[in-house]
């Protein structure tokens, strides 16, 4: 549960704090309000924890953390399943 998972921003949703991110192949809307001050753009990577981007990271860090997380086995599978479980429609909502 304390896992923070890297995701790549695909699209910002105008008029909200939300963005669509690709998290290990799963598309999900996440809240990017906490990193808004630094500015966030499609293609950039963030560390996501319980649906919120906690910090911006570079691609090397993202790939390394992803591999580390995949190495966790069940915990990673559960986390991805949890993300998938409440996947919201990409358009609008949130």
């Amino acid at each position, binding site marked *: *549960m*304390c*896992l*923070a998972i890297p995701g790549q921003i695909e699209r910002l949703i105008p008029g909200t704090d939300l963005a669509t991110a690709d998290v290990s192949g799963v598309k999900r809307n996440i*809240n990017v*309000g*906490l*990193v*808004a*001050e630094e500015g966030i753009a499609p293609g950039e990577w963030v*560390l996501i*924890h*319980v*649906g*919120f981007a*906690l*910090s911006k*990271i*570079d*691609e*090397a*860090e993202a*790939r*390394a*953390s992803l*591999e*580390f997380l995949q*190495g*966790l*086995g*069940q*915990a990673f599978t*559960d986390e991805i399943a*949890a*993300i998938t*479980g*409440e996947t*919201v429609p990409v358009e609008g909502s*949130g």
Partner: protein
Amino acid sequence: MRFVDEFRDRNIARELGAEIARLARPERQYRFMEVCGGHTHTIYKHGIEDYLPRNITLVHGPGCPVCVIPMGRVEDAIYIARQPGVILTCFGDMMRVPGGNGCFLDARAEGADIRMVYSPLDALKLAQRNPERRVVFMAIGFETTAPSTAITLLKAAAENVRNFSVFCNHVTIVPAIKAILDSPDLRLDGFLGPGHVSTVIGCRPYKFIADAFQRPVVVAGFEPLDILESVRMLLKQLAESRCDVENQYTRVVPWDGNPRALDAIRRTMELRPYFEWRGLGFISQSALKVRETFAPFDAERIFELPGVRVADPKACQCGEVLKGVLKPWECKVFGTACTPETPIGTCMVSSEGACAAYYNFGRFTRERVQEAVR
């Protein structure tokens, strides 16, 4: 995977190991605590201790949010779940945490509506979709997670979602570290600071460890080389008779943390006078509660909770494991009565718990090998 190799290179690991061996004085014992369960996981999985001289011991700390939830709070949550119209939501890891009379899964089997969510925002959405139900989110976690709950509270208030509330169990890491430093059971020589918590709180809050307790702190990343590099940095400080807070994980952790996240916490939550931690007992100013301005969204104000203190099972030694006094395999029930399938204590429930990490990966670490040949 070029990127990953940079963090895993065995040659660099050996070089770091050699540098560590050079810095560590052979006549001295070093005990470093890794505060965060994520670090514990890396240490066991990659056999980090095998790269360290024998006079360096890594001691596992209390940084597993699921592990420190006391049984009484699990009971309170189940009480809430049994009230008419309630949907209790929680993170998946909570489902098997034992309370005094079973866990959430047991309560659900008996008819309580308890559902797993990935994010507190999903719980809020559930409330908006089910206006006739009362949706309660059981919030747990350190400062990594508290901002998410805080923003969800702000959103619930802004959108006036009156059937949503938070059962707040957020804890703060610094008082727990202080309690461990004050404990007479344990002598520690330095700390590997938690990586993800520090993305929120930054590095400054650890300064008291260096100043008042004269112990070095290095905020560490989660890769094997991060851990080795952080151990090297701790030893270097000790060799130079310094006690500072240093940041090894600069690629993720800003020195000042995340001001927006801290602001969201401050606006919605305040410190409790004291809070019970499983195994560690009552620690003053170590947890957060919902501020009075958000009272309509505070499950503790909405429901009259039993609030009964439930003692841990006698056989369970999670407290000693959480404080680093016992290694997981030294617990009486480890791997026999207590396994990830049928956990007695919380350290065996969460994948970040020291016992679960050791159970899954740690079979051949240094101590175990030594024990086997004895």
